[in-house]
């Protein structure tokens, strides 16, 4: 009910602002006492002291610059803002709800986040004495490489902050808050917990004015909240994408004419790059390596057959654990059973590649020796490049 609808791309495990704030509050972070509404009329039921902030609940970045946050001085203005925001789209995404909060008067705005970072081998804490919508353009934030959560040391962060944050009370508040956010990230499988802006009030208190929390989708087996986010997200995805997600296929829909069925993230990108260099456009990133079964491949074909933009299907797989002679047999079956007319180009290599090659040939199907050759053939069948 409260998930955004629309066609924009977003991570299924990125929590909406109000969800993130609820989680922050539950671990002891101060947030404004807001209320969620789905329609202008619901504003009447709230006990608010004005002015309020009316905030579209969308995952797309740049909401503030796009007018997704409105200050309202009275109930009439708040209702108008709710109605307008509910009817708007942000980067293609329509809000499913609007958050109405007391307008908080900040002395200053900071930036604070805890996020997973490969270079740190774990978590980093990022702090900027200047937060808000302009964070991207400013000086890079202060960075504390924590690594494993148990390695967090408040005094290290304190030292790092000393260089840039002159107010000792604010420093201590940020250190305490960073500890809470790191604990949240570690105990609740979050890959990012970002507060931007983090308001400093006149009396020195810190209030999270926004919340961007990304959970770890692979931790769904041990966190029902993550499983629920994923399930709820799937309910609102277009059917084709939902079916791929359920089958473990990694799909990123694009808008091209070469329907690429591939295996492995790097190899898929490599093939997409060759298509692009040849002047074509891949129709998708579609990685079947997590489900190299007849059902998985059939679903991939169904998806591409039914996409009117796709002119040719290119199957490019270099298998390791995937036994290629089995893949070849599946391809033979799929091709034999299909009624559609879209041409299919194969390039199968890897474990048991020779048998795969023979299987395809025995059924009159070509197997290209190189990726470049397969891409060239697909481009020709799609009607050439640019």
């Amino acid at each position, binding site marked *: 009910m409260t998930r955004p609808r629309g066609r924009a*791309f977003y*991570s299924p495990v990125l929590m909406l602002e109000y969800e993130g704030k609820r989680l922050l509050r539950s671990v002891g972070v101060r947030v404004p006492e807001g209320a969620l509404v789905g329609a202008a009329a619901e504003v009447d039921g709230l006990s608010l002291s004005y002015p309020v902030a009316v905030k579209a609940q969308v995952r797309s*970045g740049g909401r503030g610059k796009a007018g997704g946050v409105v200050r309202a001085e009275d109930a009439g203005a708040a209702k108008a803002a709710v109605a307008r925001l509910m009817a708007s789209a942000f980067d293609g995404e329509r809000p499913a709800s609007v958050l109405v909060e007391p307008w908080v008067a900040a002395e200053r705005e900071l930036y604070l986040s805890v996020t*997973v*970072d*490969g*270079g740190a*081998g*774990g*978590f980093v804490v990022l702090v900027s004495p200047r937060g808000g919508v302009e964070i991207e353009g400013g000086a890079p934030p202060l960075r504390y490489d924590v*690594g*494993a*959560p*148990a*390695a967090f040391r408040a005094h290290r962060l304190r030292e790092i902050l000393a260089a840039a944050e002159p107010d000792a009370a604010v420093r201590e508040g940020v250190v305490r808050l960073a500890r809470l956010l790191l604990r949240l990230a*570690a105990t609740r*499988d979050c*890959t990012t917990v970002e507060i931007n802006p983090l308001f400093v009030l006149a009396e020195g208190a810190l209030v999270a004015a926004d919340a961007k929390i990304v959970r*770890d989708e*692979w*931790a769904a*087996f*041990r966190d029902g909240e993550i499983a629920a986010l994923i399930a709820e997200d799937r309910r609102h995805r277009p059917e084709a994408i939902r079916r791929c997600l359920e089958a473990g296929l*990694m799909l*990123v829909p*694009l808008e091209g004419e070469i329907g690429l069925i591939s*295996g*492995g*993230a*790097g*190899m*898929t*990108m*490599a093939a*997409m*790059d*060759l*298509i*692009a*260099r040849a002047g074509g*456009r*891949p129709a998708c*990133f579609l*990685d079947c*390596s*997590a489900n190299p079964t007849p059902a998985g491949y059939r679903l991939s074909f169904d998806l591409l057959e039914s996409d009117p933009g796709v002119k040719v299907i290119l199957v490019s*797989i*270099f*298998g*390791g*654990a995937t036994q290629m002679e089995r893949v070849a047999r599946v391809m033979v079956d799929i091709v034999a059973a299909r009624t559609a007319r879209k041409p299919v180009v194969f390039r199968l*290599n*890897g*474990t048991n*590649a020779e048998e795969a090659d023979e299987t395809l040939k025995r059924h009159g199907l070509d197997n290209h020796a190189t*990726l*470049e050759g397969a891409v060239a053939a697909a481009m020709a069948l799609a009607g050439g490049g640019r």
Partner: protein
Amino acid sequence: MSILLDDKSAIVIQGITGKMGRFSARDLTAYGTRVVAGTAPGRGGLEVEGTPVFSSVAEAVAETGADSSLVYVPAPSALDAVLEALEAGIRLVVYPGDGLPVADAVEMRAAARARGAAFVGPNTPGLISPGKAKLGFMPSFCYRRGGIGVISRSGSLSYEVSHRLTQAGLGQSTVVGIGGDPVKGVNAAEAVAMFDADPETAAIVYLGEIGGGDEYDLARYAQGPGAKPVAALVVGLASPPGRKMGHAGALIGSRADSHAAKIAALRAASVAAAETVSELVPALRGLVGTG
């Protein structure tokens, strides 16, 4: 020489009674790898493909002298299995599985470092020192012994490129899949340092992608004094920003994550950087001749 793995390595396969465990027991042995043991809790005393099965890694180590492990268990049990291997004294642990919570990868990395052991993974085909030993599920025919050290964030792409290197007569000292997740065991910087110290490795090939910062670590190495020749491929030229391309780490979040920025940084560091897979072997030939 080679890195991490050679013909003296003694392998234990954790989860040897599963489908992948059985496959690798057969496949690694066929490659000439010394697979000395397998483990499966409660199933000690069995044999799988001629390999003795123990109920714990500690028993396997005590009985067979295993020093390297390939772990095939589901993600929810992976941390426990890796900790068991490390505590039993295993020096090299490979966890190929994907779908691992990043928090568990963080713990695995920290635990391996605390013991001075090497952890490779998650989300990797493993590693191979061609002609010596194999600790993973890559297709053996793609590899040939030689002097190129290969580091890859992606599995299939490493088969493709190694195959091209082999066909071009450019053999490999070790090909290590460091994995596609943001937090990993042995990372690009650490693998590069190992190849730098390996006398058999004459040049380094790095297979990277958009997202993450490993490529910048590579550039830092290549800029340093006495660095070995480095060629690199970055994939993701055609990938739009803001979307995760299969790998958890392959996402253009900021400008530095992009294909163009990485290629530029690598070239500025004198890395022979290929923009597509087609350009990689020619770029490497420019560095090392015909091998």
